[in-house]
């Protein structure tokens, strides 16, 4: 069951088109999975639309002469194929297991690189979002563990399939998690099916313990 949603303010900014692109993407994917936020955002969008379109504006001042040719050009365009062009590939695959991704992430399925196996029963596959942030699908196998870390920027996580805990809370499929420099956590999954998440960071993580200690000044390594 989904317990962690974007805040009211985040949803409202999203509805108005004011979120950062990375946040907009993760919120949009959460909304695909969360009926509650979906309804709420639909209402906020309707409010925003009213505010924008029922506003008394000076029509003449916003009617540049280019509009005539724009209108003519548009009506020469062909109709889009229906239903809207959905990408052929909408599942990501790891070790023979297939995972459905939310609608908002489908366009990135074929921009997802190969999986690499990391320490601690972790798998990660990079997702090329362009310059808006570093994105990965991360899979924690049973007992998989990301070393404890804090954040130099913002870390956005959406649980795609499964459950995990991080020492702060327990998260389930669909949960939306935003972490920043105020939070230190150590994600791990005890679920026998493991846990797949989608994550975007805008700055490198800062590891506070675990494997990272291997790289701390070496004089401190010897007990």
């Amino acid at each position, binding site marked *: 069951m989904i317990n962690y949603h974007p805040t009211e303010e985040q949803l409202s900014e999203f509805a108005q088109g004011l979120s950062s692109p990375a946040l907009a993407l993760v919120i949009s994917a959460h909304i695909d999975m969360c009926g509650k936020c979906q309804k709420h955002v639909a209402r906020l969008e309707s409010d925003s639309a009213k505010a924008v*379109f029922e506003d008394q504006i000076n029509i003449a001042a*916003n009617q540049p002469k280019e509009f005539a040719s724009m209108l003519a050009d548009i009506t020469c365009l062909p109709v889009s194929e229906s239903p809207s062009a959905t990408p052929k590939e909408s599942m990501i695959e790891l070790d023979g297991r297939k995972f459905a991704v939310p609608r908002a992430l489908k366009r990135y399925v074929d921009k997802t690189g190969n999986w690499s196996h990391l320490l601690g029963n972790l798998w990660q596959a990079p997702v090329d979002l362009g310059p808006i942030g570093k994105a990965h699908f991360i899979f924690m196998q049973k007992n998989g563990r990301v070393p404890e870390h804090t954040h130099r920027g913002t870390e956005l996580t959406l649980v795609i399939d499964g459950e995990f805990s991080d020492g702060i809370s327990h998260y389930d499929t669909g949960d939306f998690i935003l972490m920043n420099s105020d939070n230190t956590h150590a994600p791990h999954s005890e679920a026998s099916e493991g846990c797949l998440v989608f994550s975007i960071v805008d700055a490198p993580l800062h590891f506070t313990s675990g494997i990272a200690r*291997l790289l701390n000044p070496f004089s401190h390594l010897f007990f």
Partner: protein
Amino acid sequence: MLVGIPLQSNNANIPKPKECAQEMSQFLVTVADKRCKRSFAEIFNYFAPRLRSYCLKQTGNEALAMELVQDTMSNVWQKAHLFNADKGSPSTWIFTIARNLRFDMLRKQQNRKEDICSDDLWPILCEHTADANEVTLEEQMTLQQINTMFESLPEKQKVVIEAIYIQGKSQQEVALELDIPLGTVKSRTRLALQRLKELIKDDD
């Protein structure tokens, strides 16, 4: 040149929201069914100036505002058949199209000035330590690099390092679990760390 499609040139007769929604819904249906240019012109005349004004307020950029109007209204023309009056009003539908295009625009615009220094998600940082040996940004290692080094360790050392550094167990716990003397755990840890230290040096 366009013939037969009038452009609204003044702001007379602004319809009431509710009537307007019904009217615009009807125009959208006609566009979807008959590719009716006249109906589309009605939609365009109502929404385009308002969209332009909205985007100008948000961005202060005339070219961007025009681009957003063009892209949004093109979508409306090409995807009118996807409009579903049961799901919301024409203005909400058109607004969300514009809003999503705006997100896409921002995505493309965001340049690489805040580029992330590592190719990987988890560079290991120790920059907050005031130690002389502190790892600088250039010397960051990624979990993946560490992983490769880790894989090169003898199996027995790997098991101990993983238990202590990843699972966070104490040396005593590891000794009990593997049923080996505490001294052996300590020496395996020491050997493994020495080996990793050499590997990290070599990596520079």
